[in-house]
């Protein structure tokens, strides 16, 4: 397990330690932030804030504590608190017309007959799922992102979020029930026979 000094004297050492922290957790933290925020700009800000906070409080980490568990707990708390405070994150609807100088431009959904269109359709599905995620309360969204997007087990999620396994189970049940309704049109193609 890695142990970081509270106030390392050499700033070049600091930078190397910091880069190591980002290299280890950056991708995953950014991916979770992106799914929690729904856009790259806010995700970048939130993920950066997570590393800033984690770095500042590294010194308070007990030597025997697991860095990974502690790190994701910091991230989860920050994400939920921040998103709860700024409710109503801007999300653009796919059906909403695009405003241009010469008037509104209606969006057209492509027909899935070529590879390019399939890729575009994949991106649209991605956005639809993301929109559905954004309709959930942050603490519910966090559970479903950790479970179904990131693939964590219930016990791991309970440890990360500091909640009982039973709560993980019930939140996930509520999240999937809500998503099941919202994603019905998208799901048709992939349901079990």
């Amino acid at each position, binding site marked *: 397990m890695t142990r970081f000094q509270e106030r390392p004297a050499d*700033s070049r050492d600091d930078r190397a330690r910091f880069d190591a922290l980002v290299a280890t957790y950056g991708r995953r933290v950014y991916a979770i932030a992106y799914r929690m925020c729904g856009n790259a700009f806010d995700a970048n800000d939130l993920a950066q804030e997570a590393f800033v906070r984690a770095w500042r409080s590294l010194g308070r980490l007990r030597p025997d504590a697991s860095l990974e568990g502690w790190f994701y707990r910091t991230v989860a708390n920050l994400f939920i608190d921040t998103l709860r405070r700024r409710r109503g994150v801007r999300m653009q609807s796919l059906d909403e017309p695009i405003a241009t100088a010469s008037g509104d431009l209606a969006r057209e959904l492509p027909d899935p007959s070529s590879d390019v269109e399939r890729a575009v359709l994949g991106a649209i599905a991605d956005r639809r799922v993301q929109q559905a995620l954004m309709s959930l309360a942050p603490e519910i969204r966090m559970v479903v992102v950790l479970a179904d997007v990131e693939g964590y087990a219930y016990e791991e999620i309970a440890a990360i979020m500091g909640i009982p396994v039973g709560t993980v189970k019930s939140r996930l049940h509520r999240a999937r029930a809500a998503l099941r309704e919202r994603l019905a049109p998208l799901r048709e193609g*992939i*349901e079990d026979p």
Partner: protein
Amino acid sequence: MNHARASRLLSAYIDEELSPDEMAAIGGHLADCPGCRAEIQELRATKRLLGSLGRPEMPPGFAADTWSRVAPQARPRLLWWPVRLPHPATAIAVLVLVLAMVTAPAIRGHQVRLRAAEVGPDLFLQRTARAQAGDPLADRAFLGLVFTDASLRLIGEDPREAAR
């Protein structure tokens, strides 16, 4: 197991996060309940849809950008030394010293002028010059000023008026 309870556990059932007894009970219920069978298919498809979401890439320069927000904190001394407030005892000591430096010459000047007026400027100058003869740091300019002031007074002029 009744339908309501089974329905609540379907989500954990597809994740295989139930006890073996509960897994068996749900399995039994599914055989009899077409509603739950349909629901479980939809839940599985929803879970797959979430699992198929793309993994966004970190923006380039993420580590460097974040470091620029962190760096001042990593070197707190450099940032904080010039703006940190002094200890109260230090502040009082500095204040007393400044006050003493301002008031001491004023009091001394006043006393020296009184003494010069008392003994007469000529005698005062003579005595003081003799006393300071061996002192290279003696303030001769000040002595000259006192002598001039006292002489002006003797001829009935105000030295402050004359200075203007």
